[in-house]
């Protein structure tokens, strides 16, 4: 067990953002968190990396666990000059052998000497992922990492994630809005809305009424891509 979240509650002020969350992450797993805006997905990530105000419960992290984190956005002040190379070297405790892997993930040397602030969305995404991988992490946390990528871009991004998992055995916990990709690439899906509505294999979650309640009847269309024989009577009656 790499990460175990036990009865976690997180609140800002009087508002409870997360309630009674239980979650565990094992080696080699790809777990995806889906949920509407404001459902506490990013807050859950923040409590795992230790930057959220936990009001009760706890997050147990196995000793010496290395976390590679890919944030949702990276707003770098334009007053800060920063080349990609220097940014990649900012990861803690890296050694020379590992820094090679960053360049491998980048798959290009031309990016190395560019200023971060001049990168396109896709380039920045590659750099952030490379930065997360520099330390050979045991766990990758991806917060809407395909935001701003087009469909082929995000498809190849998810292929890369799966490759990384297969190569290194690191566990992946990600937040995503690409519902159909989630359904095909994850081992487990967690449906979050302040609390965990439902979780399990993609197939199980997709057919649960809680999931439908959250994402509306329209998810049927997306799911059809994944599950051709999928059929739900309740939904048809609603229409």
């Amino acid at each position, binding site marked *: 067990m790499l990460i175990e979240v036990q009865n976690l509650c997180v609140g800002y002020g009087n508002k409870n953002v997360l309630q009674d969350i239980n979650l565990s992450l094992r080696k080699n797993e790809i777990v995806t968190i889906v949920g509407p805006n404001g459902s506490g997905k990013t807050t859950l990530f923040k409590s795992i*990396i*230790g*930057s959220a105000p936990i009001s009760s419960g706890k997050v147990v992290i196995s000793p010496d666990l290395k976390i590679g*984190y890919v944030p949702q956005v990276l707003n770098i*002040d*334009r007053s800060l000059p*920063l080349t990609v190379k*220097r940014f990649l070297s900012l990861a803690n405790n890296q050694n020379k052998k590992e820094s090679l892997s960053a360049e491998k993930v980048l798959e290009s040397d031309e990016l190395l*000497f560019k*200023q971060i602030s001049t990168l396109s969305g896709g380039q920045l995404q590659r750099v952030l992922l490379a930065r997360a991988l520099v330390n050979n992490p045991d766990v990758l946390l991806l917060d809407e990492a395909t935001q701003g990528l087009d469909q082929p871009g995000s498809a190849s991004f998810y292929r890369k994630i799966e490759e990384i998992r297969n190569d290194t055995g690191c566990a992946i916990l990600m937040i995503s809005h690409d519902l159909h990709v989630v359904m095909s690439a994850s081992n487990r899906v967690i449906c979050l809305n302040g609390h965990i509505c439902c979780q399990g294999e993609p197939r199980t979650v997709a057919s649960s009424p809680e999931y439908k309640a959250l994402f509306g009847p329209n998810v049927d269309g997306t799911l059809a891509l994944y599950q051709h024989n999928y059929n739900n009577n309740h939904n048809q009656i609603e229409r």
Partner: protein
Amino acid sequence: MLDDFMVRASLAGIGVALAAAPLGCFVVWRRMAYFGEATAHAALLGISLSLLFEFSIFAGALLVSLSMASLVTFGQGRSLFLDTLLGVAGHMSMAAGLIIVSFISGVRIELMAYLIGDILAVSKTDILLIWLGLGLVLLLLIWRWSALLLCTLNEDLAAASGLKPKRESFVLTIALAVVVAVGIKVVGVLLIISMLIIPAASARSLGSTPEKMALFACLIGVLSAIFGLNASYVFDTPTGPSIVSVASLIFLATLIFTFIKNRFLINRGNKSRDSNYG
């Protein structure tokens, strides 16, 4: 050698410039300019208290700016109007300081010296304090450099690497208080913020990495101190404002340099965006 007032003034000016420049880069990157200014203004309360109770001005300024800065660092995230609170606290302290000073007879004439500095009057003890402060600030910054950079970039990235962003920003708070305290003799509470941000702002277009920018800022700060001091000697102008004016001229020069460089490179269809304001 230290008996020559110009040598003493140069040593004091260079010391403050070297401490202020790299810290100033963080002030610019983290958009803490107003925070720095309010902290510096609040130091006037410390000065007036030290005049009233007759203890070291350096200690008084350090104490007040440190408590002001820590108040803000730990209050962060708890209040939505941090900026406003900062303005209130900073200027309340300054007003209180000015009132206290008005009760002390004979000090009112000296007040200008604390507002814009009186570098020509620095003693050997002042120089020692300035260089001790410089040593402390540089040690702190070098020790926490990578951690501070990462926290500046993104606090969540820093937290994921096992850092505590709050603790790191407290390092900056301490350094800021020290720079304010040692800078009072040289440029005064009104101008110390300019020693922080002007060299850093000028260095922005010259360096492609944070480290290069900080080194350029140090160079620009030292040049401003030396040339400002000499200009004030030659033209018989107030020294603190002269140093700041030279720094501002350098800033203008780098702006023009960047502008020309960009035009030139864009005309040649080159990748010009790598080393300028983007």
